[in-house]
């Protein structure tokens, strides 16, 4: 009997073949404690060397919002969006969730080489842990965001609850993004240099700091293009639900159809991201 027949007879399987989608998902689900613990540990270790500790999670986006707000406020002059403070704060705080998943997701595999090469477990857990970590820091920083909003005269209304389905869709979308960047940097290490640039580019084009419908008034086709911009849609919906009715002008760009578009984006990004990441499962940790 030759060796392959022997292997066959005893049900031995070829090493390196990746598991099927369902068993992969099941294995990952069994690692849910790993994912949440990893996210929590990483959050605490990141800030433990700073005197202000986790307070930086709030302070960093607040300072960003302050700087960008002042600079772009001066530059835009009369084109400034109405209720500018709330506009910028919501934009900067909400965008940081996307940029975090985009940038840190890229390091999920390459930054954990020791772990990947020593223990075998579904690698999907690592980018998922990154998304959970970013989500937790968003929740924490949202406390500050709410405080600033109330301070600026936007008191809580029932519409604030729209944030819950919005965050669900946003998380799905960002998970897909993190899975894609996690795999891409494994193949092309150079991407770690380019991704921050792309992230910055998206920051300036997502309408974080300016009102798209005002700035591109004379180019309606650009505004139409923004109907296809998922992060922009997240920001518009967030502003619609958080800023009270006094800012009717802001709400003009809101379109209920954005929910449908965004849902589409979220599902597509998640499915494509997952399949893209899963199909290279055998290759992580080889480099």
């Amino acid at each position, binding site marked *: 009997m030759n060796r392959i027949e022997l292997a066959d007879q005893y049900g031995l399987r070829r090493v*390196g073949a990746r598991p099927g989608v369902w068993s992969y998902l099941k294995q990952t689900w069994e690692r849910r404690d790993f994912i949440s613990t990893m996210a929590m540990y990483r959050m605490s270790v990141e800030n433990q060397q700073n005197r202000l500790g986790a307070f930086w999670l709030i302070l960093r986006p607040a300072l960003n919002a302050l700087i960008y707000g002042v600079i772009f406020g001066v530059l835009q002059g009369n084109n400034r969006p109405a209720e500018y403070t709330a506009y910028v704060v919501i934009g900067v705080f909400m965008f940081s969730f996307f940029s975090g998943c985009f940038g840190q997701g890229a390091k999920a595999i390459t930054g954990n080489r*020791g772990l990947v*090469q020593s223990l075998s477990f579904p690698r999907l857990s690592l980018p998922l842990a990154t998304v959970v970590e970013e989500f937790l820091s968003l929740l924490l920083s949202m406390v500050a965001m709410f405080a600033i909003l109330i301070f600026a005269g936007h008191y809580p209304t029932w519409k604030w609850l729209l944030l819950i389905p919005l965050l669900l869709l946003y998380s799905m979308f960002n998970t897909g993004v993190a899975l894609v960047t996690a795999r891409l940097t494994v193949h092309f290490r150079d991407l770690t240099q380019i991704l921050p640039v792309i992230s910055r580019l998206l920051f300036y084009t997502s309408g974080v700091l300016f009102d798209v419908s005002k700035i591109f008034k004379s180019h309606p086709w650009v505004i139409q293009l923004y109907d296809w911009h998922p992060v922009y849609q997240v920001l518009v919906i967030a502003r619609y639900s958080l800023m009270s009715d006094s800012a009717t002008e802001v709400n003009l760009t809101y379109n209920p159809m954005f929910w449908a578009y965004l849902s589409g984006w979220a599902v597509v990004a998640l499915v494509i991201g997952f399949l893209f990441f899963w199909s290279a499962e055998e290759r992580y940790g*080889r480099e």
Partner: protein
Amino acid sequence: MDVNERKPVVVVDDVHVEYKVYASGKAYRPNAKTRVRKTRGLRVVHALKGVSFVAYENESIGVIGTNGSGKSTLMRAMVGLTPPSAGGVYASSRPNLLGVGAALLPELSGERNIVLGGLALGFHKDEITELRDHIVEFSELKDFIDLPMRTYSSGMQARLKFAIAASKQHDILIVDEALSVGDKRFRQRSEDRIREIRDNAGTVFLVSHSMGSIRDTCDRVIWLEKGELVMDGPTEEVVDTYEATR
């Protein structure tokens, strides 16, 4: 023992591994999909030239050979980290490779590495507490367990990694020189643990340059030289022949 009665767990069938390496030092991985241009600087290193063997349940197999003989390449091919360019490896479950190398999560404390390592291996949250005390005790790192793992010496890192990985009953465990950096006491106890894993229906591969460890723990030895299998048989026989050639 009758060969047919034993259950094979790993079948290595005529495995070849080639590394394409630029002489300038730029390496091409064998699995890269990009077509390799014919450059004068390109060299093909034939790291494994058709290695075959069958490993059975309850065996502990020593792997010996000089530096660069292909031992680590064979082990990496067995866990799927390096895909063979020809032939194949078949296993009853995915083998675990424990090698020397980086800390698991360098920034986190030893204790948190234990928790995360245990969870990654599939232990339940409730099991971790018990497991943690056991691992701390085994690795003898009680005084340092709250320090970040990057501050550990290579011996301490290896001890902790071995203790975490060995806390689970593996079907197939490959230990690639991971014990050589530990001190004598630790080596003794890890050898005991390896025997324990083997006795519980596991199969262990031990790559080592220490013939003492090999004689103490292995009942079968594979001797590689320049990517070829020179000898495969009972420990005493192979090790004696190996030592005679040096």
